[in-house]
């Protein structure tokens, strides 16, 4: 029987000499041979209970599933029983993020461009305000010292000052390890260099980036076809959108600012950088002249004002613009008065609010917004909606009147069952590029095929293990740190991902150069260090090598 | 010249272990209007013999030798199409053992009668054919309206009558009746037999009645042929076969059925089973089961001998008729241990003699 994951310890005991020895290094500290058979704490308390480790199935993410297996094996190695629970994405999110019913949870956190601003990674993910059900602070990390820093950085318009705060914050969470920060999962997005040119992969998004889609150009014909392993749910910007949806909504709808290839917000529908006054509480933006919607109507400052009011009324997105107190317009300018200082205002608000045509959305009731169906999805973006059949294809056409029209006349998006299937389509020529990382096996095929190439990109999001600090023994910092020492980060990147991506130790990716603190404490696979941490935390092992609390705990 | 003249007919089946000689050198004639009974146990080859007449046998069977002359036509030489068009049903029809299974269950009885009439008579309209079917039903004592019923809606006796109607619908010259009444209960049996005989006389057709039941043949047949091991071992007029048969097998068969004249008589059955017909050895095929078998019987195949009035017998000891008849009436004679090859367990009969 294949005891791959469950109860590996029992298996080893039952199977005897099977050559199953894993990570034998450090066994001696386990007390095998030094007489008393007990190490660590002088006297043992209760045995550490079995830990519930929630991980994705290999169907959801094969790489991460492998990683989880390796981690679980190491945890067992240091004497912890692991209840290994594989879940589908939705069930996983429900259990770990919504119900918060887990001990450890291995999930990814996406690195979309608007997250290049450190606010999401610093505040949303680690501030104690966000530890409620469904909140970003899944581990339930609550540290007043840290909270202060997280609040402070929002109010610091001066980037140097803010950088210092963010650096300090990173040091604290690296020390406290509410999560094991494992790896930024960059990689390659394959494309057919024999059929398209002008690709522009960007940080965190690779070929899915907005910039790539407007710069990519077919060598023959007028169409670029893109493959993606899942379907778009909706093009309605007012719905709850997943990342793949956003990547297309933003082609059709413009924002005042877009996150540039450098990760910083750049003026888009706005004519220039915003004028910031009042100590960072007033933002004034002038909009570009001569913009029109796809149906030919002009895009005016009234549409912009309408849009922000629409967001404020929207039950789904109201909170996004909460920070805005009042809006004024004059001429071609719109002024936002903020309730309080909000440093990431341009990136996270002006960069995320899509501009709506008032003549189409004007009569929609707020609670109808997310159900409203504009058949032609009229926006002002560089692409116009053409046609769509779910699970078959989505067709877009270049909006030639746009101030920055795309290089391809037509753009088609094909959803597929999985990357493998789409890679086959790429090879056979029915797809021009794929917005997903292929399996390592595909890398060799890319090398061999003259028509194919891979676009490298790095990620600022990461895969991590959240420890549920609401429960013991995760309230013990040594315990968390010990577990983090069991995560084979390098092995994961170099072997499982065949070199795609980078190891990380901080919540801010090294590829987010300005905000990344390169000097945080590092945790890579080191079971000796893990055991030392546990001893320091007052834990100990019994004769069978099972981990116990110390008696005084 | 008889209506049907079968000469030295050999119908063999191919089996995995050789040829099954189901009919092995049979000669038989049937006159117009005559009823001939073929009697024998199941497996004796009587059915194969009868079906050979219209060449109705599975793909793995064939007539390897002999002739079947029907009214001047050599049936063995006809093409399949000629056989179907000219002989089957229009000249020679049949009544199967179980009428219920003889009809296709998914069509009405009437439509099946109409089907066969219309196939053989090109210029008969559907309406006429239906009319004839209704008339036949009426004559056979079935409500004519029932031609639109399905086979499963008939009782056993009714189905058999309907089958007779089907067999008679083209007024054939010969009817092959294969145990036409065994599936029915005794009371109905007689009435059906009567009906068959009556209709047969009416259209003056001959009939070959296949049965294992001596009492049935004795009542209905003019002549009786006793079939064993693929051969006709004895043939004579009905009275001779019933009263003074010469073949031990006939004697044995007679014992196995109640005698109308002697109600107290014990029923005695013949021990053993019919022989394996795959490449049989020389010698009388009945010898292994025969209480009177001698060394000669095991070694030499008996030839048919004529005992007058067309009474043909294939038996080495047919001359000892009185002794045979007397002994055969005793139950002990047919006890199983009494029978077998002489050199193994010598039967008393031979040592007594």
């Amino acid at each position, binding site marked *: 029987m294949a005891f791959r994951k469950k109860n590996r310890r029992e298996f080893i005991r039952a199977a005897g000499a099977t050559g199953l020895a894993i990570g034998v290094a450090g066994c001696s500290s386990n007390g095998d041979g030094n007489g008393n058979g007990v190490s660590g704490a002088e006297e043992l308390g209760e045995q550490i209970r079995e830990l519930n480790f929630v991980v994705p199935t290999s169907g959801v993410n094969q790489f991460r599933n492998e990683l989880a297996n390796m981690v679980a094996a190491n945890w067992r190695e240091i004497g912890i029983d692991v209840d290994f629970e594989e879940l*589908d*994405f*939705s*069930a996983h*999110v*429900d*259990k770990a*993020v*919504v119900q918060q019913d887990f001990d450890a949870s291995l999930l*990814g*956190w*996406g690195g979309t461009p608007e997250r290049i601003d450190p606010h999401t990674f610093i505040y949303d993910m680690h501030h104690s305000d966000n530890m*409620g059900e*469904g*909140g970003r602070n899944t581990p339930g990390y609550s540290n007043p010292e840290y909270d202060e820093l997280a609040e402070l950085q929002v109010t610091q318009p001066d980037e140097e000052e803010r950088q210092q705060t963010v650096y300090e914050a990173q040091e604290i969470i690296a020390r406290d390890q509410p999560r094991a920060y494992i790896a930024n999962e960059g990689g390659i997005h394959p494309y057919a260099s024999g059929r398209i040119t002008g690709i522009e992969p960007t940080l965190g998004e690779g070929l899915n980036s907005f910039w790539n889609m407007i710069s990519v150009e077919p060598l023959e014909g007028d*169409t670029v*076809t893109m493959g993606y392993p899942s379907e778009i*749910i*909706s093009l309605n910007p007012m719905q*709850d*959108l*997943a990342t793949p949806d956003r990547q297309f909504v933003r082609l059709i709808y413009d924002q005042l600012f877009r996150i540039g290839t450098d990760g910083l917000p750049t003026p888009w529908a706005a004519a220039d950088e915003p004028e910031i006054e009042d100590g960072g509480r007033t933002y004034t933006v002038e909009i570009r002249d001569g913009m029109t919607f796809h149906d030919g109507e002009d895009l005016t400052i009234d549409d912009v004002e309408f849009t922000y009011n629409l967001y404020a009324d929207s*039950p*789904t997105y109201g*909170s996004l613009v909460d920070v805005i107190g009042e809006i004024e317009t004059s001429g071609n300018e719109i002024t936002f008065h903020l309730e309080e200082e909000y440093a990431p205002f341009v990136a996270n608000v002006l960069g995320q609010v899509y501009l709506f045509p008032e003549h189409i959305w004007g009569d929609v009731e707020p609670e109808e917004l*997310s*159900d409203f169906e504009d058949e032609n999805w009229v926006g002002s973006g560089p692409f116009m909606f053409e*046609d769509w*059949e*779910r699970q*078959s*294809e989505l*067709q877009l056409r270049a909006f030639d009147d746009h101030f920055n029209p795309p290089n391809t006349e*037509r753009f088609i998006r094909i959803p*597929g*069952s999985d990357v493998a*299937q789409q890679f086959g*389509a790429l090879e*056979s020529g*029915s797809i021009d590029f794929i917005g997903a990382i292929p399996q390592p096996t595909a890398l060799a095929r890319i090398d061999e095929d003259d028509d194919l190439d891979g676009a490298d990109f790095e990620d600022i999001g990461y895969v991590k293990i959240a420890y549920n600090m609401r429960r013991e023994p995760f309230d013990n910092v040594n315990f968390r740190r010990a577990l983090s020492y069991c995560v084979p980060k390098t092995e994961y990147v170099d072997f499982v991902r065949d070199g795609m991506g980078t190891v990380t130790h901080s919540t801010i990716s090294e590829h987010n150069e300005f905000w990344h603190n390169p000097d945080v404490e590092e945790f890579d696979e080191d079971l000796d260090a893990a055991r030392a941490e546990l001893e320091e935390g007052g834990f100990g092992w019994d004769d069978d090598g099972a981990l116990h609390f110390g008696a005084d705990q | 010249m008889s209506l049907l003249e079968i000469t030295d007919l050999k119908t063999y089946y191919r089996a995995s272990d050789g040829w099954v000689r189901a009919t092995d050198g049979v000669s038989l004639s049937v006159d117009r209007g005559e009823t001939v009974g073929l009697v024998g146990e199941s497996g004796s080859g009587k059915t194969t013999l009868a079906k050979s007449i*219209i060449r*109705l046998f599975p793909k793995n069977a064939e007539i390897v030798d002999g002739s079947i002359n029907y009214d001047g036509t050599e049936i063995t030489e006809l093409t399949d199409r000629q*056989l*179907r*068009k000219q002989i*089957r049903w229009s000249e020679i*029809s*049949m009544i199967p*053992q179980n009428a219920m*299974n003889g009809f*296709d*269950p*998914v069509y*009405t009885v009437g439509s099946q009668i109409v*089907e*066969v009439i219309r*196939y053989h008579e090109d210029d008969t309209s559907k309406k006429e054919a239906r009319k004839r079917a209704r008339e036949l039903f009426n004559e056979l004592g079935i409500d004519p309206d029932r031609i639109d019923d*399905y086979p*499963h809606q008939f009782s056993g006796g009714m189905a058999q009558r309907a089958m007779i109607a*089907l067999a008679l619908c083209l007024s054939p010259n010969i009817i092959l009746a294969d145990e036409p009444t065994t599936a029915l209960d005794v009371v109905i049996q007689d009435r059906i037999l009567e009906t068959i005989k009556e209709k047969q006389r009416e259209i003056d057709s001959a009939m070959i009645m296949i049965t294992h039941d001596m009492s049935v043949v004795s009542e209905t047949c003019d002549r009786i042929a006793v079939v064993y091991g693929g051969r006709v071992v004895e043939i004579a007029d009905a009275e001779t076969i019933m009263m003074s048969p010469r073949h031990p097998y006939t004697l044995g068969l007679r014992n196995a059925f109640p005698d109308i004249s002697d109600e107290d008589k014990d029923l005695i059955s013949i021990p053993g089973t019919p022989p394996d017909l795959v490449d049989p050895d020389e010698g009388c095929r009945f010898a292994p089961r025969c209480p009177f078998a001698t060394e000669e019987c095991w070694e030499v195949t008996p030839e048919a001998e004529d005992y007058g009035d067309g009474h043909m017998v294939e038996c080495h000891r047919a001359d000892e008729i009185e002794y045979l008849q007397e002994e055969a009436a005793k139950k002990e004679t047919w006890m199983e241990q009494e029978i077998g090859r002489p050199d193994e367990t010598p039967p008393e009969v031979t040592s007594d003699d």
Partner: protein
Amino acid sequence: MGLREYVIRRLLQLVVTFWAFFTLLFVLFRLVPGDPTSMFILDGMTPEQREQRIAELGLDQPLHVQYVEYISQLLTGDFGQSFIYREPVIDIIIVRFMNTIVLMGTALFFAYLIGLTFGALMGWWRGSKFERGGIVVTLAARSSPEFWVGIVLLSVFVFWLGWFPSGGMRTTGGELGGGFLARYGSTDFLRHLFLPALTGAIVFMATPTLLMRNTMLDVLNADFIEIKKAEGLPERTVLYRHAARNSVLPIVTVMAIATGAAMGGSVVIETVFNWPGMGREMVRAVNSNDYPVAMAAFFLMGSVVIIMNFLADLAYVYLDPRVEYE
């Protein structure tokens, strides 16, 4: 009991079956962990947004209220709205349903066409090498899971020979929508249809082949076939009008069940060939807790079986006069 009463009774049973089937579905799907907001949480949905959405969908209501609401909605022929897509379920599902029906229908049609012919021939030539070889081939096909057959066909015809496209339903970039013929009539579509349909046909073929062979043997041994031959009817008439007609009876029932198996199996074939069908849509819907879509898909698949069974029963009454309306 007369035919009319029989049909009415069967119809009533049909209604009860449907209701029970649906209730089963409702219970089943409410037990699935997670809720329709799970998909969005990592993409930025805040806790407030989430609660708002749950209330909007009525998922905070007690189960029996949801049940009554859903049943009454269904009675008006409304499958509701997709939790995720926020569009009427029927709009989402109907195209997929058609795609699946066309694929599986083609597969079943060829499976039965080939299977019945093949099976009849095997029965006809019983004991021959052809029959023996045929049985082994048929059992081998029956022993292969659909995905395995699909992968083998893909390897040979797409990866190796390059004769067919690797997946999808048509070459992309063309006009979308269009009428039935425009969608399913083009040679481009047929090229895409070939391999997935062949996969289905190979897997589904075994049952009719073996069944046809067996019933053929039974029927050919039946007394009435001999009588029909004795009647002088030509072999063709005997074979088609009588033998085949009787052999068809058990096939009808099995076909209804096979349709069910085909609907269920469509998930696998659609996955291997990236076919935009209902099976895949259902898996997606289950994974994202989009109950209305998942239930509708499940419901439609089940309905096909229930209705096919019902029709098979009625067909039986018509085809076999012996059936009693018990």
